[in-house]
């Protein structure tokens, strides 16, 4: 690939020539070795630092969630009225709340709720959005109806939609996941539909149709694999958004039940006291922001790596 260095390219610049430059020149090989991009995971991470940083942070959070019981935590729901609202100290790293519960333990266990909701919503909304988008994009007569319904759902602000759905049911992690998934599906469906609409114009799809391939097989073998890259990127954004919406729902009292230690719940409980005991609100805020930032970085990195066209547009 590299053109052999010509005489003019190697000729020392007469103005800046120094003794070293002259002696160094003969050591140069006639043909520079091609720069070999590093393959494998390491090379990928080097070319996409956002993926590396985001991925590492997400992995850390995942480990915190899994190892919460062994990270010096106590029962996050254990009440101890005798030691209410203690400031952060060696005994209580993040302090205690107004019921004497250890905030460090609650925040660490809260990681589980946030990641469960984020990952579940990302997977469920992607699967549902993929199915709806594929059908809508490939089966023309269904498109008009499905997209009008999606437009309708999309015109309800997502947080209000989730609030309205949560008002109907008891607060539980499962219901929070369902409500946020329903609010996220229209966006994913629209994205998949857009991708499918451009893919179905591709010559290889025409070729498959001409060869007599059945529609389900075309969708499965020719369309679906090409939607996966933009879907993966979208799924990370859905995950980040779901974690924020979960925290917001819990914060305003429409999310996980108060017995579950989630970051939104801890902040909701610290709300009344935040002017005198700001640390109660502070620690879950930091964890929430860092986690969402990590997922967003991962998403941006994956977008640049997997979907260069979209990367150029944003």
């Amino acid at each position, binding site marked *: 690939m590299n053109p052999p260095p010509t005489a003019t390219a190697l000729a020392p610049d007469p103005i800046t020539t120094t003794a070293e430059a002259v002696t160094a020149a003969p050591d140069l090989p006639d043909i520079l070795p091609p720069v070999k991009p590093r393959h494998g995971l390491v090379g990928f991470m080097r070319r996409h630092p956002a993926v590396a940083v985001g991925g590492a942070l997400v992995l850390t959070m995942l480990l915190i969630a899994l190892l919460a019981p062994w990270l010096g935590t106590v029962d996050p729901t254990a009440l101890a009225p005798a030691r209410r609202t203690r400031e952060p100290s060696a005994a209580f790293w993040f302090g205690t709340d107004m019921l004497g519960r250890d905030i460090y333990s609650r925040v660490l266990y809260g990681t589980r709720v946030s990641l469960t909701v984020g990952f579940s919503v990302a997977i469920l909304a992607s699967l549902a959005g993929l199915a709806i988008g594929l059908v809508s994009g490939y089966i023309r007569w269904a498109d008009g109806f499905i997209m*009008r*319904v999606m*437009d*309708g*759902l999309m*015109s*309800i*602000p*997502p*947080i*209000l*939609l989730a*609030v*309205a*759905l*949560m*008002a*109907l049911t008891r607060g539980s992690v499962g219901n929070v996941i369902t409500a946020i998934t329903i609010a996220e599906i229209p966006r994913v469906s629209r994205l998949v539909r857009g991708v499918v609409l451009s893919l179905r114009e591709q010559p290889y799809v025409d070729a498959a149709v001409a060869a007599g391939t059945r529609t389900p097989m075309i969708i499965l073998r020719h369309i679906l694999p090409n939607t996966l890259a933009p879907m993966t990127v979208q799924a990370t954004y859905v995950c*980040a958004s779901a974690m*924020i919406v979960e*925290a*917001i729902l819990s*914060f*305003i*009292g*429409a999310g996980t039940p108060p017995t579950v230690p989630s970051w939104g719940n801890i*902040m909701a409980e610290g*709300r009344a006291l*935040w*002017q005198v005991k*700001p640390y109660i*609100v*502070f620690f879950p*805020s930091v964890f*929430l*922001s860092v986690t*969402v*930032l990590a997922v*967003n*970085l991962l998403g*941006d990195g994956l977008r640049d790596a997997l979907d260069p066209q979209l990367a150029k*547009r*944003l």
Partner: protein
Amino acid sequence: MLTYVIRRILATIPVMAIVALFVFSLLYIAPGDPAAVIAGDQATPADVERIRASLGLDRPFLVRFGEWVWQILNGNLGTSIFTNLPVAAMIAQRIEPTLSLMAVTLVFAVSIAVPVGVIAAWKADTLVDRAIMLFAVLGFSVPVFVVGYLLAFVFALQLDWLPVQGYTPLSEGLWPWFENLILPAVALGCVYIALIARITRAAMLEVLQQDYIRTARAKGIGEAGILFIHALKNAAVPIVTVIGIGIALLIGGAVVTETVFAIPGIGRLTVDAILRRDYPVIQGIVLLFSFVYVLVNLLIDLVYVVLDPRIRY
């Protein structure tokens, strides 16, 4: 042009119908039987049936839906279960703080985000651009209530420059009103700024590559003139679109911001209604905000015709 306007207006009707159907279904499947509540503990099943018939609750779903839509078209959003006040009146009472907050945020966010996005595109792939885009990712990632608490802690509690919480009606003076809205508007605006700045940058990058920009430079027009007059005009359509779509973020974020800053607006009404399971109020708020959102985006679609004369459907 007139056909485009009419067709665009007609296209919102099915969308609004689906929103209405969805919101009505919420109330329809909401737990709790209003007839049983009204009849009380001593009522026999026959009594409950009679009350249900007198309220019209025994009629088919579509009949009740039709009647409900008719009521809404007449401005009747139902009655709160908790306060027995009309929902429309309760919303009207609380609308001023929310509208004020959203208006201030909108003006603040757009006036920051558009120039910042333009500068990022102008300085594309430099340190300035990277820094701006990093802030955009931060804006997307740090939730509105976190920003809110942080701002209130620094500027109200520590520095004591601005009030911590609360709201002063506009009728009590411009500055007291504005002073209370600065911190909430900045907090609420963060995500919105990130969103608009990103789209502005993307749209500007595309426009700045075009031939007429080179022509303008060759003519000796200053950079500012090229960026903000020649280029921004042609990048306007996606920017205006995202400003409209982002209104949904403002509506959702207002609920949280009002809770953090103790602003007695629709957001607080929503939170109270959730705690009391006051379905008609929740329903009324969702319906109202969705319609506002649809109308704002309809207006923006109509503005396209002015911004880009090529748009003719």
